[in-house]
């Protein structure tokens, strides 16, 4: 399940992916333009830095930027770092398995199917890069606003 943390993290990364390479963004700017509570964003960006997706610089001129080109960062990789194992329900995880109070996992058909669903989630999210996600958004805006530069073709 994508938590708020995962969603905010992805929005922040897309924000960074829209900047010219090497340009730093202030946490406050990322937070306000994406409607993310700043304190929460601080924590999220800290985790993304530990995992090697963003770099930060301290001080007045400081801020965050992507550690690697946006087309090298996969969405699924980011979600695992922020939300843990990809899983539609908490019991459908092998490493962070959380038993449901109200059922027996050995005979639970729901869990069985959800284990299959998580493979499908991984297949989609591990194919998509941040760059593709950024450009999906651009595509929509082009249709709506009609004034942005033509979006790059999204390769499925």
């Amino acid at each position, binding site marked *: 399940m994508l938590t708020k943390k995962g969603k905010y993290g992805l929005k922040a990364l897309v924000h960074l992916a829209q900047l010219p390479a090497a340009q730093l963004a202030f946490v406050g700017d990322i937070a306000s333009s994406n409607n993310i509570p700043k304190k929460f964003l601080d924590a999220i960006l800290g985790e993304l830095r530990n*995992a090697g997706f963003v770099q930060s610089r301290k001080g007045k001129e400081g801020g965050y930027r992507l550690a690697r080109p946006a087309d*090298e960062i996969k969405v699924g*990789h980011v979600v695992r*770092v922020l939300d843990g194992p990809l899983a539609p329900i908490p019991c459908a*995880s*092998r490493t*962070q398995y959380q038993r449901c109070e109200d059922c027996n996992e050995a005979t639970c058909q729901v869990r069985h199917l959800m*284990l299959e669903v998580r*493979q499908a989630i*991984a297949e989609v999210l591990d194919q998509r890069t941040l760059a593709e996600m950024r450009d999906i958004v651009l595509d929509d805006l082009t249709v709506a606003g009609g004034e942005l530069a033509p979006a790059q073709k999204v390769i499925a």
Partner: protein
Amino acid sequence: MSVARANSIIPSSIIIVGGGASGVVLAAHLLKSVNPDLRVTLIEKRPHFGQGIAYSTLLSAHVLNVSAAGMSAYADDPLNFWRWLQGQGLISQEQTPQTPFYAPRSVYARYLKELLDELEAREKETGRLRLIREESLSISPTSSGVEVTLANGTSVVAHLAVLATGHDEQPGAGQGHAIRMGTEADTALDPDASVLVLGTGLSMVDAFLSLEQRGHRGEIVAVSRRGLLPSPHRKGAPIKLDVADIPLGTQLSYFVGWFRDLIRENQKAGIDWRDVVDGLRPFNQKIWQNWPSSAKRRFVEHTKAWWDIHRHRLAPEVHARVTEAVKSGRIRPVAGRVVGIAADDGFAVEIQSRHTQALETLQVARIYDCTGIARDISTTSNSVVRSLVDRGLARPDPLRLGLDVTAKCEIIAGDGTASAKILAVGPLTRGTFFEIDAIPDIRVQSARLSKQLLG
């Protein structure tokens, strides 16, 4: 062999350069195809197919480092080798595959030989398999396919060629006076002389077992950067993981932290670390391929030595012999590096300790190269690979672990273009697939490549 068909969608004639274990396993997978036009030509310079360097040893103490239940040549029939062993009476019918059995490597060579003999007999009528005992010198792309030049002056043509030349036969440049065990240079030794082994991994253990067999009594000093010896196998079952559980594409430290936590949690539940390490195995290539190049580099530099001793383990009986030999002083593992070698009557070797920086001079009669399998491919002793690199048709991968290949096993030329006609399997593809030295990985790669080429 009809070269005129080169433009057809399915390439039907394929040359495999190298008839060691990877070459035979690949041929076996290709020949599962029902395509009657298929032509597989397997070229091997050694007198025997299926042996290569790995399985040519006759020493019974040189056992496989993987239990027989993991050593089938076929990806879709994992117990093929197990049943063969039972058929040979080497394991009882009652023994279950969960109980490890470490077969001598010479027995594995016999298994591959019989497998190839059977294929040869089966394909005699069809003419789909041709074996050539000759050294290959070079591969050249032609307008319609490839041409492989042989040492006897003839050449063979096909739609495409797959390199399966495996590990290098000669020590890498810069190993100075070191020789490989079992080669011609490995002449008789004074049984009481000290010898130096470069490396402390599985190859060092092989060298120790060979020296023991020859009645060698002198001290064996084994030196590597960290001086770590391989761990033993233990009966167990790998934990179950899905790709959705595993952090991909992160920095190395993040991944290592996750993996340590995973081991710790499992240990709390009474599960052995080996079962966690083995549970990760199906995903190792994926993990490697998703790492940024900085993480790959750091892994090779700092983490690989630790990974190797936990991942590439010894049969328990062999481990017990090594442990005993270390205790009695027959093997002396040293963490350090060789800083100088002077050849006189034997060699005076200067070693610097990793921990104390102290220098020690050893007088040894021989230096064996057991630094393992990774070496710069552009200095390879293999003429086919060498000539491809020299002509710009192939290049080393960025970490110089092997040849640069695509995820579809196509070799990448000096200018970055992938070849549709020259491919590679096995250890040569380590830069892209990382763990691709052992049969369980090579058979999966072969199955995938067969599907890719023949549908």
